[in-house]
């Protein structure tokens, strides 16, 4: 990167999108299956591992401010281990991109476009992701910035309108049974550890931060907190509106919630509110999927050739094709949800690895970044 161009508010927004993405489409039902009515508490519990992850990422960034993950890993832990650790991150990020794109394609296919092959929907999204990755991180950052004006009003609407629309009932959260929360401790721990991972963006965009150092910390904290609010909303709102166990019966609770949150009158200009918002939400999904994909592609490129200035274009296209092909392995939304369970565990692994890397860096003070 030639000069830093990413301000901390932009990084915070990108980190939030990275986390929120299409998780609204599958995270609520994943959490419902773990903790039932009390699953809204998981986004709050998950702030603890997120804090550790943020600290670890920030520390690594201060040690290697001008290097990306794939560039400093070999010097920190040696080449063989860097491939293993880097590979975990790559799998997680690529899995995130595949998951987001595929879940969204299935959702659109289930609700709006039943005859269009899911592969076509996946390909349409995947090709945009590849397009952005080809154009570079700067384009990705600007695209995310531009989407603020579209997404922020919508997110604010989705967060606050339900309170005025008379659709939600806080008594639906009751009764609160702590045993619900801890019914499946291991899955809960994995989900909590994996939930907020947007700060991992600093591993890729750290060198572009302006100013570096403290800007990364502020961005990571702000972005994560914003993601907490969004996640809490997406998980809690369906329960508040539909009640329990009805919310748990829905295949896409957050999306169904958006359908009923629209003003009641038939005079509302858009009748299928969820569908119009799906289009807007798609923008969230696409930004997150781009970020995941770009992170994966960049890390692979860095591990293979740390000094390369740009990712080779045919490599990006190849990864994109691989993304589309791998999405065809899913047979319906159920298989995708099974995969997300695995993906969440990968996320927990990457969070753990981040903390371990920071500890290793702490003890290997002699290894420092290129300035």
């Amino acid at each position: 990167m030639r000069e830093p161009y990413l301000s901390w508010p932009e990084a915070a927004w990108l980190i939030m999108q990275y986390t929120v993405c299409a998780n609204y489409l599958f995270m609520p039902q994943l959490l419902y299956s773990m903790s039932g009515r009390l699953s809204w508490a998981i986004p709050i519990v998950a702030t603890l591992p997120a804090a550790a992850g943020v600290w670890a990422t920030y520390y690594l960034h201060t040690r290697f401010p001008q290097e990306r993950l794939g560039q400093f890993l070999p010097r920190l832990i040696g080449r063989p281990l860097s491939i293993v650790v880097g590979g975990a991150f790559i799998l997680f990020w690529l899995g995130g991109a595949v998951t987001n794109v595929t879940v969204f394609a299935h959702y659109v296919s289930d609700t709006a476009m039943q005859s269009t092959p899911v592969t076509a929907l996946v390909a349409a999204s995947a090709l945009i992701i590849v397009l952005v990755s080809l154009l570079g991180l700067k384009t990705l950052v600007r695209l995310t910035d531009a989407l603020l004006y579209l997404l922020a009003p919508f997110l604010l609407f989705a967060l606050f309108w339900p309170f005025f629309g008379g659709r939600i009932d806080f008594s639906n959260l009751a009764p609160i049974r702590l045993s619900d929360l801890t019914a499946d401790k291991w899955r809960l721990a994995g989900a909590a550890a994996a939930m907020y991972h947007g700060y991992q963006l600093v591993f890729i965009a750290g060198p572009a931060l302006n100013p570096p150092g403290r800007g990364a910390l502020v961005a990571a904290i702000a972005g994560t907190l914003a993601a907490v609010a969004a996640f809490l909303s997406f998980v809690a709102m369906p329960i508040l509106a539909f009640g329990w166990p009805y919310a748990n019966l829905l295949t896409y609770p957050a999306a169904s919630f958006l359908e009923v949150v629209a003003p009641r009158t038939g005079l509302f200009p858009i009748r299928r509110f969820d569908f119009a918002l799906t289009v807007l939400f798609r923008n969230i999904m696409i930004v997150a999927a781009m970020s995941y994909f770009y992170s994966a592609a960049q890390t692979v490129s860095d591990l293979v050739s740390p000094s390369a200035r740009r990712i080779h274009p045919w490599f990006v296209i190849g990864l994109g094709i691989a993304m589309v092909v791998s999405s065809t392995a899913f047979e319906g939304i159920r298989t995708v949800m099974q995969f997300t369970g695995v993906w969440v565990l990968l996320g927990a692994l990457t969070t753990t690895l981040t903390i371990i890397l920071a500890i290793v860096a702490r003890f290997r003070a002699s290894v420092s970044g290129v300035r």
Partner: protein
Amino acid sequence: MRRPIKIIPRPIEAEARKAQPPDLSPEFREPPVDAPLRFDDVEEQVSLINMALGSPSDLAVRRMSDGVVCLFLSPLVDQGAVRHSLVEPLSRAGWLELQEKSQAARVLPVAGLSEARSLEAAVDRVAEGETALIVHGRPTPYTLDLKGRVARQVSPPISEPSVRGPRDSFTENLSDNLALVRQRIRSRDLRVRELTVGLDTRTRVAVCYLEGRSSPEVVDAAIQRLSAVTAPAVIDSSYLVPYLSKRTWSLFPPAAATERADRACAAIVQGRIVVICDNSPFALVMPIHLATLFQANEDHYNLAIHSFLLRSVRVIGWLAATLAPALYIGIASFNPGILPAHAVMTIASARQGVPYPPVIEVLIMDIALEMLAEATVRLPTYVGGAATVVGGLILGTAAAQAKLVSNVMIIVVALTAIGSFSIPDYQNQLSWRTVRYLFTFSAATLGIFGVSTAGLIILTHTCSIDVLGDSFMSPIAPWRWTSMAKDVPMRVPEPLAVKLTQRQREEEAEGTADA
């Protein structure tokens, strides 16, 4: 490739027969063939210049006195200036008083007197419209700037009319245009750097900017890129755009072309550079942003709130122009449930009996609209009105009554037309008219989902555009809140704008301009 001109001694007699100066002015005296020519170097230079220019019939050769000859291309020279500045003074001076430039400067009351570096250079300057003064004893001629121009008067702008604001616009004369700029910006910091581009046309180009306001990197980049122009001909300023932006295939204009002097000067004051090209009434403003392309100059002459209203209307028009046909296809072919039931039934009823699918309807009407717009531009004024009426009839009532298209489609196309014409910048308008087809085809394949896909592609493209190092989407993306607050959603009143500009400069100085 031109061969350099070499002075080769030739028999004087043969040369005297060859040279046939075309000018028939009474001052011209052809020396007698048999009389010895004392000023053979003068004749040689005359002959060489004449041959280098291809013996044009409009090359005037005037022998002022012994040993002093002037050459010029008649159409490019101000005859009155020649008479006053050359003929009259030289009638009292001989070749001896013109040996040194300082001497010549005392004799000739011409500001643009210079010595040509070589005969080659003298030929070029004569071709550009200067007058060559060949003096016996001097190896190279003097050149004098006595240019006269065929140019029109300053007139109101044709492509950028306005209700409020000045009525003068650029013309094809670079000097006049620079005068319009300098009349408005009388600051000592105004810089005008001139270059010559185009191997064949040798067009003068001026880069105007305010020192201390414009970024030096941007100015240097622009100068460098203009210096590297390889086009043989630069007939209009638009020829320079691909060189300045380094984007050969661009959907959006990287520079705003304006014929309004006030708009160009406002851009200079804002810190942009303006490239004015001789023989072109359109100046290029760079770097330009997408948000700027939706601003009209009147925004700064009306009250802030009025400007906000008008800008909002333009944005709505832009959205309607770009998305209305695509949304119609998406709703009518893929996702009708997105609308209230009454609206759905209205559209369905309107489409009863129409044989073509919505996408064909849209394409028929869109192409007809484009043809009508093009015809209106090409036709002479007297016939244009009639064509508009006929086109409107065909596009409107007749097509609907013949059930070629539905009534709703008429409304959609009307919205599209009105919306696109509300976009202020003509090139920007054309860009979005082109983009509309991308949205249309995307909607035809994937409905609303396709519209969203196309929107993302366009947004990605605009986010990837850099013009002279500045993002095309700035200040929207990357975020520049101060700059955005000043003039993007709303043009704030001037006192507040001044404060915001001050703050913006402080932020840029601190390096914290990014949000």
